[in-house]
């Protein structure tokens, strides 16, 4: 399985009696979009946080390109190539759009501790940032204050910042949430392009988007992966119907 | 030990209001020490006029609660949505106003406030220890207030609202509770507790301008150790600080005397003792950055 970029092996995490993730093993292969679906409270965000290192797992390992990430902090994981977008936009709101993207490029290059050179005159960083903005379609908003962006534009900027990191894998937590129909279409187009750069682990509620984009889908219920497969397989899987619609529905 | 307990109880009276205000409204109030001072001055003024200690205590409660309600209505409520920096600054400004305002009204000399004759002098405790009766009553009153606070928070309608307010402001507004009134009430309650503490303590210490700030800093140490917003934490923290400080003052010079010459031991020991509670606080925060009972 040399084409596996990111994998989790037997991840557990519980909060008191609540098992948020229960024995989760997943993998993300080169060039694919792997969607993670499941009802609210199924533990999708917890899982993402475990993968990015924001939450420590009770047990289990996360591997990126065969490297065990146990005990590695979120900042190092990002540097090693996990590019993440957030469920709730997480940007430096007072900075301009370009500054946010430069921040990502800076993170990718490392060596933040430079005190005298004006960072916005660093051609290397700025051109990397501008390229990412152009890729998501935000080039003309480079000088806008991030707080003045629309909701959809902030989502795009999130993706652009993740892009500047030149990640090996993207982790995207509901990038379509709150986008209108048009915005969602744009985002779908963007993600289709992006998977060529790095595979995407995608959490999404918008089923149309999921079935349009995903190469594989995993279903998470009560912290457990109950099925993984192609969109077609998932569509017909009786267990999933039961999980979503309730036990009383006959298989 | 008993002294540490009593010091701790006094600190609790002071910190309970502070931690309540922080827990419910998310406000750091540096002017809490001024309310303490107002309580003491009101008590001293009333005691001088009427000679009654009970009336004096009532006056301290009333004056501090009134002052608290007044600043809540005019100033503090504008600060709830601000960041901590603005709160620190605005309440720092209130300290300046209150301190000099009090000096304006009462003059620069300390006022007189004495323990009631009934409680003057020592009592003999089981075990043959002599202990001042007044201090013993402070311990009792402090514990009663602690019990009362727990009961208020956990058993009454107001308490339920306060707890709800800690959890979610919009939520209780949606439930039809008048949040503004609730906040004024909580702030006045915290102020009254501080004023009450000021009056109780004023009787055995000096009633003077600037008496609030040292206690204020101690109270902050207490609530930070206990975990901000937690009444239980304030109680445990207060006792911990009270006992650490008292025992440290007593024991450290003796410990140093074991391996230093006496005058150096006294001097090094006392120097360290005065830093002890801050060391305690730093220690607690290093290992539990949210205090002992703070929510993560």
């Amino acid at each position, binding site marked *: 399985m040399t084409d596996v970029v990111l994998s989790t092996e037997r991840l557990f995490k519980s909060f008191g009696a609540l098992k948020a993730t229960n024995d989760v093993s997943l993998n993300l292969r080169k060039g694919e979009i792997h969607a993670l679906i499941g009802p609210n409270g199924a533990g999708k965000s917890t899982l993402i946080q475990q993968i*990015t290192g*924001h939450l420590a797992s009770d047990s289990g390992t996360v591997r990126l390109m065969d490297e065990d990430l146990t005990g590695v*902090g979120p*900042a190092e*994981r*990002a*540097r090693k190539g996990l590019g993440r977008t957030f469920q709730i936009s*997480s*940007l*430096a709101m*007072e*900075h301009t759009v370009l500054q946010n993207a*430069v*921040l*990502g490029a*800076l*993170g*990718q290059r*490392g060596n*933040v501790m*430079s*005190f*005298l050179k004006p*960072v*916005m005159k*660093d051609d290397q960083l700025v051109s990397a940032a501008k390229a990412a903005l152009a890729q998501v379609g935000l080039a003309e908003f480079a000088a806008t*204050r991030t707080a003045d962006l629309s909701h959809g534009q902030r989502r795009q900027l999130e993706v652009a*910042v993740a892009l*500047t990191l030149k990640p090996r894998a993207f982790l995207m937590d509901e990038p379509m949430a709150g986008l209108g129909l048009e915005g969602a279409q744009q985002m779908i187009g963007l993600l289709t392009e992006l998977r060529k750069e790095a595979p995407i682990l995608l959490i999404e509620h918008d089923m149309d988007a999921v079935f349009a984009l995903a190469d594989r889908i995993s279903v998470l219920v009560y912290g457990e992966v109950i099925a993984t497969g192609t969109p077609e397989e998932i569509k017909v899987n009786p267990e999933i119907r039961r999980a979503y619609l309730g036990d009383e529905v006959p298989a | 030990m008993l002294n540490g307990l009593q010091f701790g109880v006094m600190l609790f009276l002071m910190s309970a209001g502070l931690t309540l205000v922080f827990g419910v409204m998310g406000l*750091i109030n540096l002017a809490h020490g001024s309310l303490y001072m107002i309580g003491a001055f009101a008590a001293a003024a009333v005691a001088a006029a009427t000679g009654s200690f009970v009336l004096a205590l009532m006056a301290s409660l009333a004056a501090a609660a009134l002052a608290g309600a007044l600043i809540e209505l005019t100033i503090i409520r*504008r*600060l709830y949505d601000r960041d*901590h*920096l*603005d709160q*620190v*600054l*605005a309440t*720092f*400004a*209130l300290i*300046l*106003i209150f*301190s*000099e*305002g009090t*000096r*304006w009204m009462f003059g620069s000399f300390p006022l007189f406030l004495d323990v009631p004759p009934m409680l003057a002098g020592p009592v003999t405790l089981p075990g043959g220890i002599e202990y001042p009766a007044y201090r013993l009553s402070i311990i009792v009153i402090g514990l009663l207030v602690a019990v009362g606070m727990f009961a208020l928070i956990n058993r009454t309608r107001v308490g339920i609202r306060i707890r709800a307010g800690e959890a979610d402001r919009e939520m209780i507004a949606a439930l039809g509770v008048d949040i503004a009134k609730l906040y004024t009430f909580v702030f006045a309650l915290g102020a009254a507790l501080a004023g009450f503490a000021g009056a109780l303590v004023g009787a055995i210490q000096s009633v003077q301008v600037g008496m609030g700030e040292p206690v204020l*800093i101690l109270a*902050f140490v207490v609530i*930070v150790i206990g975990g901000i917003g937690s009444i239980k934490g304030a109680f445990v923290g207060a006792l911990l600080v009270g006992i650490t400080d008292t025992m440290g003052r007593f024991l450290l010079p003796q410990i140093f005397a074991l391996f230093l010459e006496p005058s150096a031991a006294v*001097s090094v020991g*006392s*120097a360290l003792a005065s*830093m002890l509670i*801050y*060391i305690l606080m*730093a220690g607690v925060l*290093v290992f539990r*950055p949210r205090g002992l009972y703070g929510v993560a």
Partner: protein
Amino acid sequence: MTRETWINVAALAVLLGVPLWALMADEPFIITLATRAVIFALAGVGLNLALGTGGLVSLGHAAFFGIGGYAMGILASHAQAYTPIMEAPFLIEGTKSMPVIWLVAMVTSALAALAIGALSLRTSGVYFIMITLAFGQMIYYFAISWPAYGGEDGLSIYKRNEFPGLNTLVPMQFFGLCFAILCLTLLLMNAIHKSSFGLALSAARQNETRVLSVGMKPYHLRLVAFVISGAVTGLAGALFADLNRFVSPTMLSWQMSGEIIIFIIIGGVGRLFGPVIGAMIFILLEHTLGGLSEFWHVYLGALLLGIVLFAKGGVIGALAGREKAHD
């Protein structure tokens, strides 16, 4: 140039112009006042990096101010008494040379900031405010009760320290020295603000997870900011001690920390020149209100309250408006 730039230039012009006028009018005390404003501004500029850019509300910066002051006091008092500070394991002599004193002041306060910051930055929000306050108080009580260097009485230096080529006892020359240092520091801070470090630090203030998820550690960024900030405030402390030829634990008190914050708030948080304008206004108020009434603190308090409640962004904010809104 933006309006804020004009205001900044005007502030510097006033700060330089007033003592020049005073020199002409033979009012040396005004020069002393201006020097005081410059030094306070420097302390504020130091804190502003942590507080304005980094969002770290430190209520213990007087510790660094005082440590800088004591670095000067201790070095100079030994030099004045011709006694070495320590002989074993190696000889350290006192000195009266300002550049050496400044270096020592900055290094010691940076080290103190490193230790205090390393522990304090594990917490955040109110806890951070309180733990920095606690460390400040710790050092304050230590200074009061440590007998070797005067305890509460403080340390007096009979003559101002020396700077090659200048007579520092002439008020205007000492002012010039402090003013030059302030300008250099402002340039430095401006560079830091625009550097990659500055970008990352202010991003960490706005959104910690964002910084983490692009692979940077907010803790490291903040610690470095705290150390630089402490060092600059320490330098201001050394100059302040030299201005007064005196250092005492008052420089370490929490009211001092509060005052440094006040400079920043009056001028405008996070603005490069915020502390400069704030310190100028504070000195002006102290000087004029203090003469009006014994109870001038009441007016100061009321004014401060007004600024916090109604003029968010301080004086620069009120005059220049929000930076980006008018671009």
